[in-house]
């Protein structure tokens, strides 16, 4: 038998049920990997005792012949944006350092109720704002991948970005520190890190997963979703994470489909749209080539390929960088030093001084930048020119997709415009960093389900991902197409252990 930590969620679940190994053995194996991977800085808090506790419950239930839960025996990582009762929740910020919620987010609560155990709280970009994990107050996560040359020539040892904001999740899964993890996606925060690290992740339709108890970034865009190494694992986790929550007004009151049971890589009768606007001049040649391979794979799976147009694509990024900061500037106003989290009260300071000092201390530069952008675009005199206009364009972008989906059932695009880059490489230029989201942001603005699956490695040996975008509520087609690609791409590459 291979290492327990190489197993997928489905394999752990089934192997545990079959008695191939105990839940405790699994938890211990992952706990050991987590403890040995400090160099990746993937976790803010490690909770080996939580993983063991859930494993113990699973083992006892099995021994007693009780019915097992969907995720009995499966340990996972939890992005530190989900509030976890009794376990520090920071959103990777100094502002919330030491904050221990008295409540459990709906999504994490569902996972624990389904038998999953928590390996720890995963690092991320501060308040989920970033594409490289460099904005975390607790230091950036490092990707387990390193550049090498396919021709055997020497690469370099530069520390690479695991993507963001769910970079702790992507790095930990790629490095076998956990078989799966939660992520959240506002403009690509599940998909881009998945692509950077050679794993899969799905952002479901907006409203599928409750946002209750997730530290808010941009309310109209934030969606939780799973990240794992296989499409099947994503389906398994999403079934547990999704579902109506009366505590979230934007949650969809719909039954959760049995995505795993209906997984099928047979795409006969499906039409795949290829949006021409996603192939701009100067698109990375390796990514263009991978995209072409992806098209062939889907054809091979029985799908018909059609060209489609999403004419407002070029406005998606500016639209996103108005709406998301606008919402964030308001969502983050509650971090004021009055009730919880950091408080910086200089001698003789009044209330306004306390706000300024607390927020100057508690927020990092990227968070401050976005709060300022958001405050600006909502200000009197600018509101119509920016926010109102952006909402109109957002509606046009959503309409683009609706019209495209009259001609096809799903869209195939690259996930990110490049492979992972070295830490520090883009930090100085926020606009270059924002461009990372160019392919992922449109689906977020339209609230559509979208998934990243690995397609292959580039010339430097770094993973590249493909993105599948589906119709609203049609996660099944997205997962099925992901499975078709997964089967054909045969992506088995894994980073060599250096940490």
């Amino acid at each position: 038998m291979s290492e327990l930590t190489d197993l997928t969620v489905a394999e752990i679940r089934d192997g545990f049920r079959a008695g191939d190994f105990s839940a405790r053995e699994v938890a211990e194996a992952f706990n050991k990997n987590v403890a040995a991977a400090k160099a990746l800085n993937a976790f803010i808090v490690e909770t080996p005792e939580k993983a063991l506790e859930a494993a113990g419950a699973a083992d006892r239930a099995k021994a007693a012949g009780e019915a097992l839960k969907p995720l009995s025996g499966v340990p996972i990582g939890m992005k530190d944006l989900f509030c976890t009762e009794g376990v520090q929740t920071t959103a990777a910020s100094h502002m919330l350092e030491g904050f221990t919620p008295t409540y459990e987010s709906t999504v994490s609560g569902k996972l624990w109720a389904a038998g999953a155990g928590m390996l720890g709280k995963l690092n991320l970009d501060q308040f989920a704002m970033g594409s490289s994990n460099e904005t975390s107050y607790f230091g950036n996560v490092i990707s387990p991948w390193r550049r090498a040359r396919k021709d055997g020539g020497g690469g370099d040892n530069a520390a690479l970005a695991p993507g963001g904001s769910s970079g702790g999740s992507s790095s930990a899964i790629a490095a076998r520190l956990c078989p799966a993890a939660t992520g959240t996606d506002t403009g690509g925060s599940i998909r881009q890190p998945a692509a950077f690290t050679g794993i899969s992740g799905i952002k479901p339709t907006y409203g599928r997963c409750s946002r209750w108890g997730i530290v808010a970034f941009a309310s109209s865009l934030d969606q939780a979703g799973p990240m794992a190494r296989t499409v099947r694992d994503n389906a398994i986790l999403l079934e547990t994470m999704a579902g109506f929550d009366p505590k979230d007004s934007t949650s969809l009151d719909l039954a959760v489909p049995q995505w795993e049971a209906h997984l099928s890589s047979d795409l006969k009768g499906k039409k795949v749209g290829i949006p021409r606007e996603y192939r701009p001049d100067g698109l990375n040649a390796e990514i263009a080539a991978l995209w072409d391979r992806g098209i062939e794979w889907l054809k091979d799976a029985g799908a018909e390929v059609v060209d489609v147009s999403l004419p407002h694509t070029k406005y998606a990024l500016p639209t996103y960088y108005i709406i998301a900061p606008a919402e964030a500037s308001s969502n983050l106003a509650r971090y004021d030093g009055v009730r919880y989290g950091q408080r910086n009260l200089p001698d003789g300071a009044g209330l306004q001084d306390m706000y300024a000092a607390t927020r100057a201390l508690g927020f990092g530069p990227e968070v401050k930048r976005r709060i300022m952008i958001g405050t600006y675009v909502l200000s009197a005199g600018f509101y119509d020119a920016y926010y109102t206009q952006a909402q109109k364009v957002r509606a046009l972008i959503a309409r683009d997709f609706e019209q495209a989906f009259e001609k096809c059932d799903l869209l195939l695009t690259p996930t990110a415009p490049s492979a992972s880059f070295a830490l520090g490489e883009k930090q100085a230029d926020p606009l270059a960093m924002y461009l990372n989201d160019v392919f992922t942001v449109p689906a977020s603005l339209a609230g559509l389900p979208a998934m990243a699956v690995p397609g292959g490695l580039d010339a430097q040996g770094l993973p590249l991902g493909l993105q599948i975008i589906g119709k609203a509520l049609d996660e099944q087609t997205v997962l099925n197409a992901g499975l078709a690609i997964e089967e054909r791409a045969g992506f088995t590459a894994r980073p060599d252990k250096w940490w």
Partner: protein
Amino acid sequence: MTETAYRIQGATGEWEVVIGLEVHAQVTSEAKLFSGAATAFGAEPNTQVSLVDAAMPGMLPVPNRECIRQAVRTGMAIEAKINKWSRFDRKNYFYADLPQGYQISQLYHPLVGEGAIEISLDDKNPDAVTKRIGIERIHVEQDAGKLMHDQHPTRSYVDLNRSGVALMEIVSKPDMRSPAEAGAYLSKLRTILRYVGSCDGNMDQGSMRADVNVSVRKPGEEFGTRTETKNVNSVRFVMAVVEHEANRQVDVLEAGGKIVQETRLYDPDRNETRSMRSKEDAHDYRYFPDPDLLPLELDDAFLEECRQSLPELPDAKRQRYEQDLGLSAYNAATLTADADTARWFEALLAEGARIQKKSESEVAKASANWLLSELYGALNRLGKSLESSPVGPEEGAELLALIADGTISGTIAKQVFEIMLETGDRAPKIVEEKGLKQTSDTGAIEAAVAKVLADNGDKVEQYKAGKEALFGFFVGQTMKAMQGKANPQVVNELIKKALG
């Protein structure tokens, strides 16, 4: 008849005052607007605060259907347009009593659109001088918490019990032109809210407070620059603010100054308003639609239920009291000015009609008179309200029935009522035990009359000589002799007969 216009006499001529009110009314509801936390007044600080109210990370608002329902019913009661599609917006500003850093309100698409309220400007004759005051809108929003600066020498404390409580902001048009109109509007609005049951209207507890917008102009000219005096918490204070602020503005203008658009505070102790902040210091609230909430869409069934649940409203009730019950305009107005009074009166009426086996209109006048004179007099004396009255509508109806069927006289009824107030006993028991039943036994009365006439031979002479006013004296003496229990009609007849 038209109202005499209210004018301020300035050195340069007459000035007209223009008033608009923004009334914040706390919605009567067990729970807050977006959280399940309780809303009772007077609880220990920070005991009615949910995770949502404290704006903990990741918490989300969920609209409380009952608060929306109450606001819709209020809108219907002022004949306003109900917007089936409305939306919540965030009003962003930092303050220690505002945990989210924004107030959830409705700027762009309020729940209730234009309506109107009719006010009466003559208490004695409510239909004589009336005026329609337009309502611009009603929107629903969250209240903030409360800062306490008097608990510690150097620190301030925050009580979040009120944080998130539902308010209706009822915005009038600038349709009022005198302190009396502003007072009448606020009183009428409070009456309607209490009838509807959407707000308890208790201004002393802060359940209802008004922002008073005042400007002055020469009659017929354009509106002047207005000031807004915040959080005025009684009808009397609103009238005082209008009067003071209008006079202050006239003084400023006549001295060659300009009115600054600003927010002012009212100091009831000094009866003056003071500047709080000017427009230049005004916040940029950065309103935008709350992305945590979907637009509020109301269906016809919901609206129909709201409509069906509305009670008879004060104006309709007052007209019915006058037309169907035959009450005077004044009595009808007094009885309907307050929902609790009307409820009490109607219970008295129903019980009276039942006991006496008569229609409500047959017992209405006596019931109204007794309530407004006897009962109110007693309650005033005792310092009690109708709500805490020791005598309830059923007991009152029993007493009135005893008068109506001739068992006791009105005079005896007053005594019986006093005993009821003191002992809590019911009228029939008191009358029975104290032997207060009025007698129509002609034999006993004849004997008493005979004795009175015999004892007062000189007065009988005078009466017969034409001093007819002495008739009352004989009646009084006879009643006295009978200890008030004689049927006055029988007494009258027998005296007449005896005097030939």
